[in-house]
């Protein structure tokens, strides 16, 4: 596969989920990141989805060990949806701006 893919970045999840304790290299990217908590404890089993207009699917990642997730989005306003065991679900509207990290914390 290409160098990109040899580096572990295919189309799916980064290995081991995302750790938000490791800073993203923002550069000219629009980053949305955060973590998910259940009873004030990071939730490591669950999924974060980024949705566009009309709840159109954009991307999804499994939560990291620290409950973390990260997206490199296009600039704009997105809906963040968290899916967790037990049918739990939470939605947040989040902005994304080039050169910035939008941080979100979600309790489910």
């Amino acid at each position: 596969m290409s160098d990109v893919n040899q580096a572990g970045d295919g189309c799916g999840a980064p290995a081991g989920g995302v750790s938000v304790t490791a800073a993203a290299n923002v550069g000219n990217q629009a980053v949305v990141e955060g973590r998910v908590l259940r009873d004030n404890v990071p939730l490591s089993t669950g999924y974060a989805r980024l949705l566009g207009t009309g709840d159109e699917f954009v991307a999804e990642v499994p939560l990291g060990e620290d409950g973390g997730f990260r997206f490199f989005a296009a600039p704009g306003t997105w809906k963040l949806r968290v899916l967790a065991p037990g049918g739990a679900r939470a939605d947040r509207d989040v902005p994304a701006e080039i050169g910035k990290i939008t941080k979100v914390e979600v309790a489910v």
Partner: protein
Amino acid sequence: MSRSEALVDAEWVEAHAGDPGVVLVEVDEDTSAYDKGHIRNAIKIDWKKDLQDPVRRDFVDRVGFEKLLSERGISNDDLVVLYGGNNNWFAAYAYWYFKLYGHQNVKLLDGGRKKWELDSRELTPDVPQRAATDYQASEQDATLRAKRDEVVDAIGKRNLVDVRSPDEFAGRLLAPAHLPQEAAQRGGHIPTAKNVPWSKAANEDGTFKNDHDLTEIYRDEAGVDFGKDTIAYCRIGERSAHTWFVLHELLEQPNVKNYDGSWTEYGSLVGVPIELGDAR
């Protein structure tokens, strides 16, 4: 192939994962997911280390595939049930890959690891031991895999289905939104391609939508001509394997190929046509 022949559900896996002649295989992009816990009796295949040539951008050859399956204890007549994370992207990729090398007795766990986790079903760190076999593979089935020259020649003649997100299709992003934006030299899509993001085929829990809805999405809404041959592509060929599975295995379209070179290859080719902008 049909839905009942290509898919199993979680209840089936719980009842049959330990049966003789059934091999459960987890394939993830997050190759560490298996090590943290997997479905009981499942073995692991690493889509990168096990299925890709370590030097060239290509698959392992037939002999390499035979060696892999022999080492993992998979026999030619075993039923292989694949599952993985990310809505079964890489499991679908492995499914297509197994078919490519002639293993016909293969199924996907509908919903994959995601639905299994969201349903709070058991995961275990225990790694099963399987005796080695002498697996014999076929040469690659060229009717399932598209290469670049065939893709360029298909412009305006066959269905081209770009399964990436609308932002990638339009050229605004070069990779999915959860990855750093680096990949091909140019953004955009192959002229005449329809944009049907893979996600349209999946429910929120990762299971596949029903055949009626899938037909509406591809044929009626996107305008994929079911009377023509089809090539699906994405960025590196695994999301499009998910769509290949939908079109070829669930909707039983006869001539569907996956272009695994996909946008990382096409978007870096010199001189080929590229279109920018949203789907029309």
